[in-house]
């Protein structure tokens, strides 16, 4: 061995051995030197130890320093490895801008559609109504021999007077009106609500007060409460309401502003007492919608049984001018979302499929790239690149794509959400939908799953191939132009599919709105104007 030659283990010597051998070498050399000067061997050994100092302490200190240094170095090397992977991945993605653009766009469509639709589903189906004890709130309609109908005012009064299942029962109706305010004429949604309405929903006004009993009778002073949005946008957020008047069928004095989250029914702008107008006592005038709050412990079935009994008694009393046969009691939450439930889940499913399609498509085109690059990979393996290193490199590439897709997808989601909100009917109460943290998490999870799907499959496929074989195969140039055209075509088809699905989703939401907005006709409270 030449004196200068490095020992094979020079870099990898364990810390303990490294320190012990170095210190032992020093002591041995010192001893030899002293012996050469004529000292007795035993004396020389003791002298060498004495001159050295505290061997144990020095050894411990050396070990600590070197361990710390090696840890820092390993960390730096790992970081450098990641940096190199990223740089290489960026360079490769830039080298094939068409592929990169298609991949990012595909991912963005999948992720964006998912995030937007999940936001809507989250708002409509998963979040409870913004009222106290929303589980107690039910919608009431009459069952008829054929179908169902809104309860006539007279029946509603009898139900309210006799039924024991409820804490409160209220009638309401809403319609679009032209109103005159100090700023000029505006189109607003006006709701007429009976006296139990606000106590039943347990609403306290943001500003001002709710109607008093004396204002909820025929000939009472006309008063109105308005939504927070109307107060802010149309009235200009006045803190003093005394000069605020709204003129529709009557000249209403504004007395209160409701909290921003309150919009029932149908995101109304203004609520006025229903009792201001005289109501017909007809038992077949199906003018009003009705809600009620169940007593604690009373089930929907209990309430329905009681109303059925009451209705049967009324029917016996008022035949033949009576058409109700019983009652239908529906939890308000499921009623407000029932017709939306199926289409929304359908949409969610469709968008999940879209993401899945995007993933598979990406995986296959990445695999195609991986195959095309098998020669490069084989060369790298042949010159000693670790299998893990290659997997990591391909994984980084996929992760980078996913990240880009995720960012683009979030932007697209925000855009799509605005479109969806614009398209959705008011009854879905989508105005307050925004991309929230959960959606963000969901999207990131989707992107990560995508990354694993895309990244690992081609990585394992490529690096699993025997290098020699790949080298020979790769020698033929990997992928023929025809193959490449097929893959490109696949990517294009997938994007087209995604766009089709998206516009389909928009149409679906729109039809959903139509379904929700077409009422049997007697729900709208137009009747007072037609008398």
């Amino acid at each position, binding site marked *: 061995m030449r004196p200068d030659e490095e020992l094979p283990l020079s870099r990898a010597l364990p810390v303990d051995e490294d320190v012990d051998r*170095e210190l032992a*070498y*020093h002591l041995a050399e010192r001893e030899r*030197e002293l012996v050469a000067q004529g000292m007795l061997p035993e004396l020389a050994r003791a002298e060498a130890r004495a001159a050295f100092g505290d061997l144990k302490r020095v050894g411990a200190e050396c070990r600590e*320093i070197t361990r710390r240094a090696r840890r820092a170095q390993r960390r730096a090397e790992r970081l450098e490895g990641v940096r190199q992977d990223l740089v290489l991945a960026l360079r490769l993605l830039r080298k094939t801008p068409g592929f990169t653009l298609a991949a990012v766009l595909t991912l963005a469509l999948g992720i964006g559609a998912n995030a937007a639709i999940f936001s809507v589903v989250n708002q409509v189906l998963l979040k409870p109504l913004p009222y106290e004890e929303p589980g107690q709130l039910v919608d009431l309609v009459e069952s008829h021999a054929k179908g169902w109908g809104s309860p006539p005012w007279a029946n509603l009064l009898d139900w309210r007077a006799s039924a024991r299942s409820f804490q409160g029962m209220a009638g309401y109706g809403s319609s679009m009106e032209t109103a005159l305010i100090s700023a000029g004429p505006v189109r607003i949604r006006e709701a007429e609500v009976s006296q139990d309405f606000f106590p039943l929903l347990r609403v306290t006004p943001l500003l001002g007060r709710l109607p008093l009993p004396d204002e909820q009778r025929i000939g009472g002073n006309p008063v109105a409460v308005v939504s927070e949005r109307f107060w802010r946008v149309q009235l200009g957020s006045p803190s003093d309401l005394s000069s605020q008047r709204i003129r529709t069928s009557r000249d209403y004095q504004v007395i209160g502003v409701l909290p921003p989250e309150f919009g029932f029914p149908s995101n109304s702008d203004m609520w006025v007492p229903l009792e201001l107008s005289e109501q017909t006592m007809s038992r077949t005038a199906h003018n009003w919608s009705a809600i009620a709050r169940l007593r604690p412990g009373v089930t929907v079935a209990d309430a329905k049984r009681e109303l059925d009994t009451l209705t049967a008694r009324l029917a016996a009393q008022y035949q033949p001018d009576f058409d109700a046969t019983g009652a239908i009691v529906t939890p308000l939450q499921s009623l407000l979302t029932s017709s939306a439930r199926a289409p929304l889940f359908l949409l969610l499913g469709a968008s999940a499929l879209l993401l899945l399609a995007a993933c598979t498509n990406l995986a296959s085109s990445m695999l195609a790239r991986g195959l095309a690059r098998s020669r490069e990979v084989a060369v790298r393996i042949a010159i000693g690149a670790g299998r893990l290193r290659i997997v990591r490199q391909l994984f980084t590439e996929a992760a980078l794509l996913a990240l880009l897709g995720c960012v683009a997808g979030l932007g697209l989601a925000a855009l799509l959400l605005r479109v969806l909100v614009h398209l959705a009917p008011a009854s879905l109460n989508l105005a307050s939908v925004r991309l929230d943290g959960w959606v963000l998490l969901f999207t990131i999870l989707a992107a990560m799953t995508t990354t694993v799907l895309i990244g690992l499959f081609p990585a394992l496929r490529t690096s699993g191939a025997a290098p020699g074989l790949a080298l020979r195969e790769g020698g033929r140039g990997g992928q023929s132009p025809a193959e490449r055209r097929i893959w490109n075509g696949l990517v294009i088809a997938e994007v087209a599919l995604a766009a089709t699905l998206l516009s389909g989703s928009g149409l679906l939401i729109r039809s959903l709105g139509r379904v929700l907005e077409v009422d049997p006709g007697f729900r709208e409270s137009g009747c007072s104007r037609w008398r």
Partner: protein
Amino acid sequence: MSATPMPLLKGTLDVIILRTLGWGPAHGYAISRWIRQTTGEELQIEEGALYPALRRLEERGWVDSSWKTTETGRDAKVYRLTALGRQQLQSELRSWTRYVAAMTRVLETRPAEALA
């Protein structure tokens, strides 16, 4: 010359090691022997203190090390200045020279007249 060796100023050992390695790669024992001989046993250095100091210099990237077989056929850990270490040596040399010159001037200059 004084009979009792002087204690080493803090940080001085690092400069001495860098200077020694400035002449070429060396193992710990060679550095230790060189210091002992050149300082004429004037400086009081525990030989063991050299090794943590060497490892600290390596941690800072001023020296690197590898195990080599010496002329006598034994394995020794040999240290070598890195480019960074060479820069450090240059700057240390400059500041030490300035420091020593300033100290010498202060200590050896006799005022022409009374200071006060």
